């Protein structure tokens, strides 16, 4: 049986993990493999969905499309051939550039990896911050250009006129792709994927060169923190990050933290995790370490532990 390979791209916080959960639900009668590519060395996303019944291969340390990690990505796919899967979903990092996916497919076929068929790429757009991020990050444009399905997510954060503007901009870049507008990535994916076509793209050298990788900082947070101090810390440090994720004990309860563009979400966690860590993805390179140290000492008495 030939497994269909589907790539999910989108900037950090746009809803890739939510989409993955939707896809798993939609195809629950099928055998699914998932490759999650995290920037942080711990797979926070991996844990969020780890109670589901599927095989998970994580690729850490950077984007699967990063030239230095291409081999690992292919190794992960080779590993998955053991499981006789119907679908493989690849959730990539927020900065992944899919334009060399075709050449990766080529490598796979040369290595007699005929068990896979590249079905295409789904790109999720964060409607809330589209304009800001689009100007900032060239990878987003490439994600749009090389996708077969584009989801404008978080539609509830914008007016219809604004959504129309965003759609227009996207269609200008890629008129062949199917475009849908969602909230929480809700859509009928069985139908959508049915006629998803793999357009013949020009094979481009990925702009996702190693040096464009982000600086990720992991903090060990094993103490108990007060909601007030944590909130203040996150609100202040967030201006230097693209994304903050993780699990932390707040006022005696384990909470899941998610911060995108300084929107702080702290929710009680039902995940059975025992690893209490925060992962910060820096928007200021390595200087994030100094800023974290400064803010940490301002709000907490516990010793800062960078992993």
């Amino acid at each position, binding site marked *: 049986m030939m497994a269909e390979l589907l790539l999910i791209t989108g900037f950090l916080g746009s809803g890739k993990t939510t989409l993955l959960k939707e896809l798993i639900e939609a195809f629950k009668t099928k055998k699914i493999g998932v490759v999650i590519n995290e920037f942080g060395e711990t797979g926070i996303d991996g844990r969020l969905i780890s109670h589901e019944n599927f095989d998970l291969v994580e690729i850490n*340390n*950077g984007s699967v499309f990063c*030239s*230095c*990690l291409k081999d690992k990505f292919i190794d992960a796919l080779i590993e998955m051939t053991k499981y006789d899967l119907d679908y493989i979903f690849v959730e990539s990092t927020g900065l992944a550039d899919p334009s060399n996916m075709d050449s990766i497919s080529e490598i796979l076929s040369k290595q007699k990896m005929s068990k896979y068929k590249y079905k295409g790429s789904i790109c999720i757009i964060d409607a809330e911050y589209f304009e800001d991020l689009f100007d900032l990050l060239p990878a987003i444009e490439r994600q749009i250009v090389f996708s077969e399905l584009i989801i404008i997510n978080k539609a509830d954060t914008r007016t219809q006129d604004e959504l129309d503007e965003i759609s227009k901009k996207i269609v200008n870049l890629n008129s062949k792709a199917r475009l849908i507008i969602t909230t929480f990535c809700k859509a009928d994916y069985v139908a959508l994927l049915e006629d998803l076509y793999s357009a013949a793209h020009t094979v481009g050298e990925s702009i996702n*060169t*190693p*040096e464009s*990788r982000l*600086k990720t900082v992991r903090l060990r947070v094993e103490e108990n923190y007060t909601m007030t101090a944590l909130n203040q810390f996150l609100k202040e440090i967030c201006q230097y990050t693209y994304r903050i994720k993780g699990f932390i004990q707040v006022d005696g309860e384990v909470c899941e933290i998610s911060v995108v563009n300084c929107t702080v979400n702290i929710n009680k966690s039902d995940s059975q995790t025992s690893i209490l860590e925060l992962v910060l993805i820096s928007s200021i*390179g*390595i*200087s*994030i*370490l*100094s800023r*974290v*140290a*400064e803010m940490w000492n301002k709000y907490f008495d516990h*010793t*800062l*532990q*960078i992993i």
Partner: protein
Amino acid sequence: MGKDLIIKVMNHETIDRVPWVPFAGVHAGKLKGFTAKEVLTDGQKLYESLLEVNKLYKPDGMPVVFDLQIEAEILGCDLLWAEDAPPSVNSHPLKDTKEIPCKCKIPEAKQGRIPMVLDVMKKLSAEIGNETALYGLICGPFTLASHLRGNSIFKDMIKDAKYVKELVEFCAEVNIKMAEYYIDAGMDVIAIVDPLVSQVSSKHFHNILADSFESVFSYIRSKGKFSSFFVCGDATNQMEEMCLTKPDNISIDENVDIVKAKETTDKYNIVISGNIPLTTVMLHGNQQDNMKYVVDLLDSITKDNLILSPGCDMPYDVPIENTIGAAMAVINTAETREMVANYQAVEEDIEVDLPDYDHLKKPLVEAFTLDSATCAACTYMWGAAQFAKEHFKDEIDIVEYKYTTKENIARCKKMGVTNLPSLYINGKLKWKSIIPSEDELFEEIKKNMN
């Protein structure tokens, strides 16, 4: 115990005496009859040599290995080995290509000489780590960036500061990885050794380099260890900026007036280390010179927030009795003060002939250095002269005077050279500590052409 003294001074507590940290890098090998290359490549020889340092020099803290080329070698620089000095870098992988290396190139613990170093660190930590504070030394981000890019980095700083900042950030990530390995191997203090910092303006330091240094020190502190910022050369104007990067300790050499520098470091509550002159006192002086120097230094400076140490990595051939004398003076200052009370240093009179600068046939570029093979700043100063020679060929003459011989020390004295490295053209001082960019140097040489 000596280690307690280091911990107390770093925590700004009151202590009975000033701690003593001899920077015996390749010099450690001399104590056991091993060459510099042997102690930097053979773990067993390095280990035996360091135990000897611990025994003979009674240090409160000591470095395990002093070689700023370990990381550069892994990142693709060719090394030129010497028997009596650390190796120097003689090729730069980014010389002709303005790239930032892939982060996948950040050295792994199994690469190059790192396994040997980690093994010695672990053994030493088990053997003497309770009584002596161990220093893990890492090549600082700016010097490492210069190793990778070569002399062009000084031009880049003016014309493409963004590139230099990114390259230095990459090197800071290398520092952080190395710090992680060394801390795991039992090091108490992580020293970021960046001699080249003294060779750029404080404005450049602030704009291009400071963030990376601060990040590295923040990381070390978050691991519960002490951080140290080693600089060589005349860093007088950088002291304030260096303090702002928040290390626990700053270490300087004889090019900086330690009494004045301490006023700055005290303002920021940072411990200062220094600064017995490496060549004039440690290498070419006698035991009494060393004892007297240390006593005089201790008598002229406040004792809190202070560590007594050589200015930088000790030359291989420092007479063993000189270091013993210095150690004695730190540990038993009162007794030593009595011993050297009536001592007058012997001045040797060596005649040197200076060129007839007014009647030269072509421009003469003279580099006065500590030693271009061992001091990174000197390597790049001499490198600038060599680059000019490649460009102008027979139209100019260049010469290096290393401060390692008595003749050259006498020449420096006669010329009035106050800082090393310095670059002179036709007998006139043009650059003191600051390394010129090729444009500046070429222009100055052209002015001196007939």
